[in-house]
């Protein structure tokens, strides 16, 4: 995940791009004609100091390499954020980012 977390006034603005195919399970392989199995992020969350500040649940309609932007209050410059996703196959990814 590529994360940009910045202080904007008293809010922490978080923007991220997660690298993920977001396969719907509806697409067919152009060459083999076989259906490409579904593989998509179901939940992406952001933790700050042991508190969940944001949860995104995705369906199959979220674009490839999902983009998210949100903001929360109470953050401090220099503090770490933890972002994690889990997809329908059970694969997960966790990324730490520092608030700038």
């Amino acid at each position, binding site marked *: 995940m*590529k994360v*940009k977390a910045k202080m904007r006034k008293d809010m922490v603005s978080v*923007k*991220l*791009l997660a*690298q993920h195919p977001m396969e719907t399970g509806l697409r067919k392989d152009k060459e083999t004609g076989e259906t490409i199995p579904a593989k998509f992020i179901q939940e992406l969350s952001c933790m700050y100091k042991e508190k969940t500040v944001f949860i995104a649940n995705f369906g199959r309609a979220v674009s*490839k*390499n999902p*983009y998210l*932007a949100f903001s929360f209050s109470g953050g401090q410059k220099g503090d770490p954020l933890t972002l994690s996703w889990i997809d329908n196959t059970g694969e997960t990814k966790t990324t730490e980012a520092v608030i700038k």
Partner: protein
Amino acid sequence: MMNKICLVLVLLGFLSVANSSYADPESDLEMIRQYYQEMFPDVAFEDYANGVYALDENAREQWQEIEEFPPYEIAVDTGEELFSTPFKDGKTYADCFPDGGIGIKQNYPLFDAESGRVITLELAINECREKHGEKPLKYGKGEIASISAYMAYTSRDNPVNVIVPDDPRAIEAYEKGKKFYYSRRGQLNMACSTCHIANPGNKIRADILSPAMGQTTHFPVFRSKWEEMGTLQRRYAGCNKQVRAKPFELQGEEYRNLEYFHTYMSNGLPANGPGARK
């Protein structure tokens, strides 16, 4: 001896071109700027670097949303890593380019007097690899597009500065690219210019056409349609297929000359690659 004959032939070819209403590159540039200025009096010169988004407000808003966190940033990171990874002989890409390869994209393609060819950035990347004992990368997408994206990123805001030196071979390459741009081809009998000189701002099916001037500044691009990065020549191949012409080999002479002419048209515009397109 052979060389002399070649030179004479080239010169003869050049002279015959000169006889049939030949215009030098500077006059072409002046003409094209004036032409678009008359066509779109409200569009500022610099804005042409944004391609179709200079003409289509609705599309521009969506593009700006994408630019909030553009998908090419991943390629820029990958490209930087690849760029700084040493070859087997310990050298890096930086050893092959002026200024260590940083902030130089705006000068490509360039005419190499020694070999008498047009050198695009992607060709230079692969020739650098081969010089240092590495296999060349596949053109069009993937690693080469990432490296090119990183090099473009370090060159942002530098004005495009393609030079056609006073060398008959360079002028010939430029003229060949120009002929390509203005020649109808494919089953649809369309030239590049049919869409991008004669019809920018008009629609082809549901898409608004971009002006030729400024088309090259933002390459390589992350195209939503591709869902990945691609180089300018990958796009040429796509355009050729769309008019149902057989595309040329990437980085072959035809497309390098085309890129030379095509990029020269954007001289003076800010280099703003890599870009994001629909």
